[in-house]
């Protein structure tokens, strides 16, 4: 080694994440209080960012859908009972982000919700929550009882 030299060694990249290992779970327990919905949504959105969900549009859709699901869980599920809780679980894999919101209520039948965009419903103040969720995320699943909604976004 006689002349000044400068070389840079880059670590080889982490192996392509085909492995089903790359899975992050975030869970959050939310009190039955409409005043904390915004904070809970923000917190989840920040964790999604930390997990590497970059497209702005995906984060927007997730925030609105989560906000809807949380307020339904608080108002209809837990019927504002402060002794009850809402559990949010986010699972991020390489292909999907799924957000589950579970309340302590009796559940309901989500198949019977009318279309809020029909002319006779367009000027109603209510009834757009589940519709928006269904429009904003790629997949919606309920558990049998109907007190747990799982909203799935496909990545890329």
């Amino acid at each position, binding site marked *: 080694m006689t002349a000044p030299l400068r070389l840079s060694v880059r670590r080889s990249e982490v192996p392509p994440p085909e492995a089903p290992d790359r899975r992050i779970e975030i869970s959050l327990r939310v009190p039955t209080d409409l005043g904390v*919905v915004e904070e809970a949504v923000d917190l989840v959105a920040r964790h999604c960012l930390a997990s590497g969900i970059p497209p702005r549009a995906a984060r*927007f859709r997730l925030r609105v859908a989560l*906000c*809807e699901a949380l307020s339904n869980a608080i108002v209809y599920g837990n019927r504002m009972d402060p002794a009850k809780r809402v559990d949010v679980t986010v699972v991020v894999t390489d292909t999907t982000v799924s957000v589950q919101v579970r309340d302590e209520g009796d559940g309901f039948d989500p198949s019977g919700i009318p279309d*809020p965009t029909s002319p006779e419903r367009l*000027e109603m*103040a*209510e009834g*757009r*929550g589940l519709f928006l969720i269904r429009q904003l995320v790629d997949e919606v699943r309920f558990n049998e009882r109907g007190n747990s909604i799982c909203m799935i976004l496909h990545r890329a």
Partner: protein
Amino acid sequence: MSFTFRKDEAKGVVVLGVDGQLIVGNRHELKQKVLDALDDGERKFLIDFTSTGYIDSSGLGVLVSLSKKIREVSGELRLAGLNDDLRTLFELTKLDSLFAINESAEEALAAF
């Protein structure tokens, strides 16, 4: 979240800005502000969403019922400053057909 509230004297328009989210936890504040102004005799309203993060279905619901209230007294409501994400919410729910929507607050004011 905070609302800003000012009167454009030239056009006689009450301009409300939504700073943050318009959602289940705060929509009543916006509603009350507009109802109070209607009581005070105001008839022209502009809601500016330039600084808004997101809106949920109950926020949309408040806009729908305000729009009805304002129409009932022959008033006028305009929305402005919706970014692409927010505009999508109005399109998905077909509410874009119910509201007069302008690109910017300036354009909306000019349109009154």
